[in-house]
């Protein structure tokens, strides 16, 4: 019985104290017809040693290819101190800080996190996390709709330059709300930027503005922000938080700044880890704070006037407001926020900026290399951050598979989500890649695209 500390004598003594004669008696209020669980199909029990061997084998299957995939999850250097400290039992095995006095560690850290995120976004306030970037965007949209209290229906503009998987999530979540209409807007095939040209109508609840967008392209966020503000809608920024150390932050976009900023916290010290756990962040202007979903920590004083931290504005939340709550979220992604807070502290403003800049420079370096290859087209002519779209002549899926043989994960094939971008590959280069890595990529790509095209059956 792993993890159960009872000796036989304990069990006996405890049953006696309770005044029953067997374990089964403890379940006697449960209709016996229901006590039918049969677990004999479960895989056999392993001890830690056996488990370790199994997991090593499995981890080795998902092995160490050089990763040029980005598309919403980015490989960056994570200082060892981040997870060493985050993994301390006191952070790792605490619950949500309901007993504030016994949770000052987590609470103060969350307050510091809120400060850092608000700072990065140049907005007034931040919550203490949501599940991930995609669901954070959904919550941001719901928040905008709540803000626009009087309206019966809400139109939200969702550019196609937003991560296609985020858009799927938004549809699944916001789609439950019949009074919110999601309207996709297109992008310019030359620039890769969102274009407002074809939009008709006048009243919009919000425009979602990505920076950088899914193609790695930088949007003209000033223009987009001012546009939606002129329509009396809210500007919802969905940004790579690391990039905000280098790029103009949402709070400073356009004349009045974006109203809400959200996104995926993963680039800030969270490992790729097969897709999660990551965390979503959400910041906004002060006057929107009561529309925010999720936990928020505030600074206060104790009975002796000493500084302390508590969960605050709980009247927005499900455990108080129940059906009227802003959101149903309860458990969030606290541990990831812990890691991110430590990460941001270690990197500081300069470390983040240099990481962003190095990633950008590496991407530009790859761009230069690839632009010299015949058969490779750099399709967008806009400034980029650390991702890049190329178009080749071969079926992209095949090229990806072939490069995998050289231990290169080449990138993300766009065709499935953007039929107009057939044979297009989205490549990401972060600061973790050396000049040699990039040159090796270029060389192998050239080799592969110089081969005659094969059919899928052969690979």
């Amino acid at each position, binding site marked *: 019985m792993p993890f159960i500390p009872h000796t036989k004598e304990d069990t006996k003594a405890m049953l006696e104290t309770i005044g029953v004669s067997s374990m089964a008696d403890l379940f006697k209020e449960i209709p016996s017809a229901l006590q039918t669980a049969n677990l004999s199909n479960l895989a056999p*029990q392993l001890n830690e040693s056996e488990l370790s061997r199994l997991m090593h084998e499995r981890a080795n299957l998902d092995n160490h290819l050089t990763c040029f995939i980005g598309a919403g999850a980015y490989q960056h250097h994570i200082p060892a101190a981040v997870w060493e400290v985050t993994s301390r039992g006191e952070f*790792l*095995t605490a619950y949500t800080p309901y007993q504030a*006095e016994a949770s000052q560690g987590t609470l103060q850290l969350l307050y510091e996190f809120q400060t850092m995120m608000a700072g990065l976004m140049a907005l007034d306030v931040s919550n203490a996390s949501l599940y991930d970037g995609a669901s954070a965007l959904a919550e941001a949209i719901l928040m905008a709709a709540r803000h626009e209290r009087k309206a019966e229906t809400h139109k939200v503009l969702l550019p196609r330059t937003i991560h296609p998987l985020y858009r799927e999530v938004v549809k699944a979540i916001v789609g439950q709300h019949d009074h919110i209409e999601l309207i996709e807007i297109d992008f310019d095939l030359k620039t890769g930027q969102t274009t407002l040209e074809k939009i008709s109508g006048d009243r919009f609840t919000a425009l979602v503005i990505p920076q950088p967008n899914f193609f790695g392209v930088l949007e003209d966020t000033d223009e987009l922000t001012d546009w939606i503000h002129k329509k009396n809608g809210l500007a919802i920024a969905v940004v790579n938080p690391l990039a905000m150390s280098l790029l103009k932050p949402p709070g400073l976009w356009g004349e009045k700044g974006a109203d809400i900023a959200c996104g995926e916290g993963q680039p800030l010290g969270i490992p790729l880890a097969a897709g999660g756990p990551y*965390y979503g962040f959400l910041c906004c202007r002060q006057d929107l704070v009561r529309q925010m979903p999720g936990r928020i920590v505030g600074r206060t004083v104790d009975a002796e006037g000493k500084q302390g931290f508590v969960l605050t504005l709980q009247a927005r939340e499900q455990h108080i407001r129940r059906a009227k709550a802003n959101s149903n*979220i309860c458990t969030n992604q606290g541990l990831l926020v812990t890691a991110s807070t430590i990460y941001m502290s270690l990197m*500081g*403003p300069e470390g983040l900026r240099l990481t962003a800049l190095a990633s950008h420079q590496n991407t530009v370096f790859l761009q230069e290399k690839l632009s010299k290859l015949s058969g490779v087209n750099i399709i967008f002519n806009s400034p980029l951050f650390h991702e890049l779209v190329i178009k080749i002549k071969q079926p992209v899926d095949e090229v990806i598979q072939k490069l995998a043989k050289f231990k290169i994960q080449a990138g993300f094939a766009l065709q499935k989500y953007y039929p107009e971008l057939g044979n297009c590959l989205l490549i990401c280069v972060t600061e973790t890649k050396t000049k040699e890595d990039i040159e090796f990529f270029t060389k192998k790509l050239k080799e592969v695209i110089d081969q005659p095209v094969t059919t899928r059956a052969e690979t």
Partner: protein
Amino acid sequence: MSGTIFDISKSGRSAKAQMPKGVNEKHNIPKNYLRKDKPLLPEVSELQVVRHYTNLSRKNFSIDTQFYPLGSCTMKYNPRGVHRLAFLEGFLNHHPLSLDENSQGFMACAYELQEILKVVTGMRGVSLTPMAGAQGEFAGVAMIRAYHELRGDTLRDEIIVPDAAHGTNPATAAQCGYKVIEIPTGPDGNVDIEALRKIAGPKTAGIMLTNPSTLGVFDQNIQEIAKTIHSVGGLLYYDGANLNAILGKVRPGDMGFDVMHINLHKTFATPHGGGGPGGGPVAVSERLVPFLPTPIVGKTETGFRWLTKEQCPQSIGRLSAFMGNAGIILRAYMYARLLGQEGMIRIAEYATLNANYLLTKLRKAGFTPAYPKRLASHEFIITLKNEARDLHINALDVAKRLLDYGFHAPTMYFPLLVPECLLIEPTETESKEVLDAFADTMIKILEEAKTNPELLKNAPHHLPVRRLDEVKAARELDLVYNPQLPSDV
């Protein structure tokens, strides 16, 4: 020494060994796209960071350091081996958009966890993607809705929720566009079945229940409830937060539930991390399988593969950009393997043994159980309404005083219907000795309440801070550090 990280920040300082190298100032970004100011992030050395956050961590209670009988939260031991193995580099460096053939290790674990969850819940289909219980609830209610809609059964706009339910239940129903109909609890802690019969009808899309309920008792009428709801065409949602009470004993599928979530961070011992991450897989009966959220791991002859929209066209869709809290899925899988069949069966038994033992000890010592005629499930409620009346001390005071003695407090003031309540869940991984020590302390505190109530009123005394002013926090919002304002260093 307890200032914020910003109080020790100084312009120009950094953790040098972490700085990227060889970066110059060249870039291709137009000037008006650039940031001009330096964001308010700390500028500190590596030692400062390690010391600051190490010391902060020491201000937390946690399972690794304390007994943490937080009702409804299942704060059991989180095996360290599981945490360590989830950090194997093959998993950590694995990009979620990798080719399936480069993801077989993770996918094997996820697939097997899907199968394990089917076995222990008695359900037919599982999706692991929801990222916490509440998102599992969302997925579940969305599936209920999709189910009715697909059948053209579109007039159902009500979800029934007991008054004892966790806040996420009504909140979820509302987020899915449903009206929430609250149903009362009888004096025995069971749902008022008569009331239910009156409420259930053609507008009923479903009911959300947890059984045993958050009152710490098993609803003996569950089969009757299921019949009632099913007979009016509604579906039953099982809130899996209390699964630890019945794991290996009773299966929600057998009780008649159609859909449920499992809180991996409770029943499957993944660490709660001071607020998360969690994991909220959903399990469903046959008729809801087509609606499961994606991605799901499928098995083919050549290996595991992702099933998404294409393969599951009726799916309610995607709830996270990638695969939910993949690392939590890994950990839950490992925990299940460490338990095996025998270990799994023992969970409910020992969780229930511990709860009933502690309940018995407290009752004998004069505490008032909320449901004195009932056995406890894996948790139980005591109400301090008598103490509040006679001694003018309340559940909050007792909770805070417990902290002084090195015990985390039980859940307070939830469920809402029991006045001055403490919801106590010891879990199966705590020893008899710890339960005895906790009971002794409760008795001592009761004694203090009689002889020296100020000790309770002013508690805690021995923690990093004294009792905190929550009203001020909400009135004078201070949510981000302002370098211009004085800070208490």
